[in-house]
């Protein structure tokens, strides 16, 4: 395609030159992905609401089942990793590769710590008798009389979220290494950041709706 005809196509309304969101195609596609992934979690949280409201057995008090200071620590770690990620995005936009790389690795550290906490929480909960289909008869949780929906929704919600944290860590590790080598442009760091902040955003909903309400 000649330069003149390419310019004509780009200027045409349906030629691909229009940017209704005022963003690059990479950012637009990332946001569309985030919306679809957000809808996945919205569906899971609505499913949780359905199961909780439909449960004939009373929902247990979360403070009796979970250690709230530990959940608070997990939340603190994730919020902090979002701030370090924001700093990495800001630094890469300013062309400060060293700061961007340092804060990307700090974000990875935060994400890994969060996953470690989640692994500990799952191990502890399973040890108390929690299974995907309900609490084991005769176990500590079984004595509390928790409805089977409680551990089921716990494993599904935190499992899906944890798998997102894990994929976020993979993306961040690749981005951090490539940034250190000077191979990732600022926009690449921004896209990784959008995904990481989304993971934090989902936790805000899970933390409130599952652990606090």
């Amino acid at each position: 395609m000649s330069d003149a005809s390419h310019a004509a196509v780009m200027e045409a309304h349906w030629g691909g030159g229009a940017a209704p969101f005022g963003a690059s195609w990479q950012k637009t596609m990332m946001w569309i992905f985030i919306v679809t992934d957000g809808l996945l979690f919205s569906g899971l949280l609505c499913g949780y609401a359905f199961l909780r409201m439909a449960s004939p057995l009373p929902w247990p008090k979360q403070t009796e089942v979970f250690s709230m200071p530990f959940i608070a620590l997990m939340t603190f770690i994730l919020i902090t990793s979002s701030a370090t990620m924001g700093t990495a995005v800001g630094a890469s936009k300013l062309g400060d590769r060293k700061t961007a790389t340092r804060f990307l690795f700090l974000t990875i550290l935060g994400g890994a710590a969060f996953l470690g906490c989640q692994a500990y929480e799952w191990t502890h909960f399973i040890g108390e008798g929690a299974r995907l289909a309900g609490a084991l008869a005769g176990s500590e949780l079984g004595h509390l009389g928790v409805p089977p929906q409680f551990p089921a929704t716990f494993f599904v919600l935190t499992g899906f979220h944890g798998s997102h944290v894990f994929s976020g860590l993979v993306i961040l590790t690749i981005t951090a290494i490539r940034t250190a080598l000077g191979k990732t442009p600022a926009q690449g760091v921004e896209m990784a950041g959008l995904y990481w902040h989304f993971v934090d955003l989902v936790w805000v909903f899970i933390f409130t709706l599952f652990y606090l309400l």
Partner: protein
Amino acid sequence: MSDTSHANPYRVYWVTWGILLVITVSMLAAELLHLPRWFLIGFLVSFMMVKALMIGGNFMHLRYEKANLAVMVFTGIMVTSLILLAFITPESWNVMHQTLR
């Protein structure tokens, strides 16, 4: 970007971090106080939305994007969720009453 970002480009992220922490601690404290159930639900859900808007606006830069993008994201997720909730809430109560019967 706001004017403050020129002075310290990372300030907005750490101010947001501080506010998010304060809100999180307030939510945990509210959980420990023996507040009326409906008041507690209203308090927690309101602050959950404030936290979500702060993460979306400041960390994900939606504040600085074209309004179209923010509208697509917000309506796409929130309206779908509310419609879904509106349909399943009465149905979940039906299921509970049938189970108890």
